[in-house]
């Protein structure tokens, strides 16, 4: 007996018929009964009884039959499954073989995909980190911030507002007022840290369980207790597990540490490092004029933002009735905390993700046209397989397997690239983007990358696979795979090119809009001259500089010391620089006018020394600047205002000699005479409104101003070109007080650049993506035209042989390319008009329909298309016609 024979050939046909299991079982049982009857009859039984006997011996026939059918059916489906698996294995093996055979193609595809998927994944990981992941606090959906609105702009709130919002509404589970402050941490090497005073509810508005100890309890407002951040606890206190209950010295007073926040806790972008309790006196609680507090809140469960807004509007009406004048132009706004945190970044990040997906899309259509070209070259192979009985479904699945393997290879490489991309984005992102540092390739991002990979595989695989297998077998085989291009095939390819150009145009228009916007922005005059100006910040500790004369004395000595540094031409100090530092505004009244406290009469207050405005090069328009004499104790009170303020208060009238005062409810007016008008500066950045500004000699500060400015000034020095001011400035400050630390020593030009960093980053990234899209589109059209021309070498040979001039042939090919490009550009222009609407808020003085950006992008693409077509066309016409004819014919 032979051990095992191969399956007989004829059995394969059974599969085609999908043998009927039921009938087979019936036949087999019938055969058994028949044989048994025969045997019994042969043994002498009469046929009647033989049948009965056979049935009895067989037993329960129905049960046997049903058991057998069940088993056979199970086996059948098992077989089908393993058949499918083996088909898949075949496809994979075949695909790998094909890929190895055409290594160049494989590398090109994998590289393109890796770049596209890598970049997309990197940007998505940022989107995920910043926008999609829930905040780490309890019930993040209920966290809000409450702002006082002044003429529609979000501002800080007064203690009175905070009190009324908290006590007279019933929408909050917790509220907290927050006020930033600098502390000197003694006990060992003195250290300046930024912190905040907060009302006890603060840690309930955004709750995370404390790392150690506890948070402030209600009624603890007056206690000398402090909560530390995880970071400060680790660095300053070496992660002391027994820190809770220990005393530390803050601004010369003893505080008891009661708790440490967990590492992830960072509710405000100011990055404060410790918190002490904040309390309000009854008098403060009825103060509605000083707007210095940030207000956090947590809504009660089930209360919507809109409900809270209505409720606070109602509370605001009550305040307005009591103080109609002060509340002019003021309102209230409840904003979800995550919206405050994310702010403008939401649009920006989605735009970036959109742009990078567009690049990926162009990459995919490039690959699709490569696949199509290759599928065309493989037409004969496909035709033969079709003729040998490979079903269309089978062929499509074979080709799709190939493209999915390519996609997976590209996707894997892309994820590796994305790791670097994320690191680059995190380090290169300009300003504080909340939670950006947490961007990583987490499961969410990896699922995104996987999905993107599969979608790409289908995108660039499906169309060519369907296209390539819709071959007319007969004509293909007859032609011997020579491949005369049929119209239908060209249409697929043309559609790809048109899509690529359309998408590239949208990208380029967006990049163009950003570049135009950046250009416009750069042309906005700053109103001051940052060249060769260095800034440095000095903050005086409250424990040793509690007295205002001590503060002023220290700052004027520091300015004098800086002035004495060789190479320093001018120096001065102010509590605020253009584009840098704290800005505090106050309502103004004009002497001799009825107290018409309209909302326009506001000034942003800066305390300054003499020489400050000259140093940063702000031009004088009328009168004079601040002088040394103004700083003397007995000097009359004066101010210098900018043009915007002068215009707001006095129109075209000459403001010099008028007296103004910051108004308060309780105190008598402090009249200050306007002695000079200076030019406007772009104080809040080139793209922001110019605020009305008022410069007050620092010795004539309003009450409490030094506290509000945190006893901190920026000192500016105009130096000789090329001079750096680090060490000598440090020495100068040390001569005044060797314990003082300097912060933010940097060129003023750097401050200007920083102020514009987000826009710059967006512009650079989008331009980069635009250029990438352009290059990919150029490669795409080059590849397609080159392929097309190669396919038509025969035809071109004939034309040239028949006397067509080379130039006319080139023209023909180029015209075809240009037609495709123009169609793409037209389609893209329509798309761009629709897409760029979302960019509006990110542009500066440029319409989203800016004709220049559209024209430039279109022309650039057209030129690229013509160039990409011209080279292969010219090469084709250089071929010797005889060879072209014989080679292909």
């Amino acid at each position: 007996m032979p051990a095992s024979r191969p399956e007989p050939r004829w059995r394969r046909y059974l599969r085609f018929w999908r043998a009927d299991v039921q009938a087979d079982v019936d036949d087999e049982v019938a055969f058994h009964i028949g044989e048994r009857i025969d045997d019994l009859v042969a043994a002498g039984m009469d046929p009647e009884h033989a049948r009965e006997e056979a049935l009895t011996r067989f037993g329960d026939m129905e049960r046997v039959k049903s058991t057998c059918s069940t088993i056979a059916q199970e086996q059948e489906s098992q077989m089908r499954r393993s058949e499918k698996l083996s088909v898949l294995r075949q496809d994979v093996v075949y695909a790998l073989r094909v890929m190895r055979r055409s290594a160049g193609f494989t590398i090109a595809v994998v590289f393109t995909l890796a770049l596209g998927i890598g970049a997309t994944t990197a940007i998505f990981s940022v989107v995920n980190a910043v926008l999609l992941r829930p905040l780490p606090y309890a019930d993040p959906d209920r966290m809000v911030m409450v702002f006082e609105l002044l003429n529609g702009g979000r501002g800080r709130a007064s203690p009175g507002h905070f009190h009324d919002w908290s006590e007279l509404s019933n929408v909050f589970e917790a509220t907290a007022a927050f006020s930033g402050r600098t502390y000197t941490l003694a006990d060992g090497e003195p250290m300046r840290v930024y912190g905040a005073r907060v009302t006890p509810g603060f840690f309930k508005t955004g709750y995370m369980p404390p790392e150690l100890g506890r948070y402030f309890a209600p009624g603890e407002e007056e206690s000398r207790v402090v909560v530390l951040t995880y970071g400060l606890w680790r660095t300053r206190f070496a992660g002391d597990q027994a820190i809770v209950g220990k005393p530390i010295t803050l601004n010369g007073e003893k505080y008891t540490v009661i708790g440490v926040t967990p590492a992830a806790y960072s509710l405000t972008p100011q990055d404060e490092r410790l918190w002490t309790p904040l309390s309000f006196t009854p008098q403060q609680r009825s103060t509605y004029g000083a707007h210095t507090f940030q207000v956090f809140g947590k809504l009660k469960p089930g209360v919507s933002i809109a409900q809270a807004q209505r409720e606070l509007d109602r509370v605001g009406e009550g305040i307005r009735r009591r103080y109609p004048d002060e509340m002019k132009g003021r309102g209230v706004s409840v904003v979800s905390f995550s919206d405050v945190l994310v702010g403008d970044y939401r649009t920006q990040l989605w735009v970036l993700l959109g742009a990078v997906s567009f690049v990926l899309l162009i990459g995919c259509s490039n690959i699709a046209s490569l696949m199509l070209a290759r599928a065309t070259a493989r037409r004969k192979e496909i035709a033969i397989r079709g003729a040998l009985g490979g079903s269309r479904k089978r062929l499509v699945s074979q080709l799709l397997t190939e493209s999915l393997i390519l996609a997976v290879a590209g996707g894997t490489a892309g994820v590796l690239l994305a790791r670097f991309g994320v690191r680059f984005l995190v380090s290169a992102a300009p300003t504080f983007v909340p939670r950006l540092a947490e961007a990583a390739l987490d499961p969410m991002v990896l699922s995104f990358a996987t999905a993107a990979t599969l979608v790409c595989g289908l995108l660039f695989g499906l169309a060519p696979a369907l296209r390539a297998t819709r071959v007319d077998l007969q004509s293909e085989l007859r032609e011997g795979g020579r491949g005369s291009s049929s119209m239908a095939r060209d249409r697929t390819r043309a559609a790809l090119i048109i899509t690529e150009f359309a998408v590239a145009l949208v990208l380029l228009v967006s990049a163009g809009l950003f570049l135009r916007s950046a250009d416009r922005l750069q042309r906005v005059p700053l109103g001051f001259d940052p060249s060769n100006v260095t800034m440095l910040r000095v903050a005086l500790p409250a424990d040793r500089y509690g007295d205002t004369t001590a503060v002023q004395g220290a700052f004027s000595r520091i300015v004098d010391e800086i002035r004495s540094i060789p190479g320093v031409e001018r120096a001065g100090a102010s509590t605020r620089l253009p584009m840098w530092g704290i800005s505090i505004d106050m309502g103004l009244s004009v002497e001799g006018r009825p107290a018409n406290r309209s909302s326009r009469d506001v000034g942003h207050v800066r305390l300054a020394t003499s020489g400050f405005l000259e140093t940063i090069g702000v031009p004088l328009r009328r009168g004079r600047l601040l002088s040394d004499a103004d700083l003397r104790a007995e000097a009359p009170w004066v101010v210098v205002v900018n043009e915007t303020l002068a215009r707001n208060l006095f129109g075209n009238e000459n403001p010099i000699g008028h007296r103004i005062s910051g108004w308060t409810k309780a105190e008598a007016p402090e009249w200050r005479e306007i002695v000079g008008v200076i030019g406007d500066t772009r104080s809040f950045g080139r793209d922001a409104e110019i605020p009305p500004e008022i410069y007050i000699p620092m010795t004539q500060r309003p009450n409490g101003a030094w506290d509000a400015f945190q006893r901190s000034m920026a000192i500016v020095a105009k130096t000789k070109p090329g001079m750096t001011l680090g060490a000598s400035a440090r020495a100068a400050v040390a001569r005044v007080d060797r314990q003082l630390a300097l912060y933010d020593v940097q060129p003023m030009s750097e401050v200007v650049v920083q102020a514009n960093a987000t826009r710059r980053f967006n512009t650079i990234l989008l331009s980069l993506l635009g250029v990438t899209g352009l290059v990919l589109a150029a490669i795409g059209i080059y590849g397609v035209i080159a392929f097309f021309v190669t396919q038509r070498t025969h035809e071109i040979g004939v034309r040239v042989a028949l006397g067509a001039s080379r130039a006319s042939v080139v023209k023909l090919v180029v015209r075809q390319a240009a037609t495709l490009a123009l169609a793409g550009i037209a389609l893209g222009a329509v798309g761009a008009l629709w897409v760029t609407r979302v960019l509006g808020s990110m542009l500066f003085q440029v319409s989203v329909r800016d004709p220049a950006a559209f024209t430039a992008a279109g022309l650039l693409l057209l030129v690229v298309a013509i160039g990409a077509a011209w080279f292969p066309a010219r090469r084709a016409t250089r071929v010797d016609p005889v060879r072209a004819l014989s080679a292909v014919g």
Partner: protein
Amino acid sequence: MKNELLHGTLEVMILKTLTWGRMHGYGVGRWIEQLGGEALRIEEGSLYPALYRLEKKGWIDAEWGLSEKNRRAKYYRLTAAGRRALRDNASIWGEFALAVSRVLKATDAPSMP
């Protein structure tokens, strides 16, 4: 008890029967009947589920052919896997049968440890 025991026994016997060559179900039944006699008498129908199970396991293979009397019959034969399975199971069955008969034939009570 008898049924479960029979299940396994039946399968081993079918495999053994098929070592002599390809055979239809009726033939297999007849062989077992002749060799096993009354002791292994089974309902003839119960043979078929066993055959189908073996086929599903891939131990035997089936094909349709014509019998000596020119009737369409389903013929079974042993596959390589089946041959291996028989070898393994036969030795297990041998040991099992031996052990059982040892116990049943024992004359001395086992010494308690």
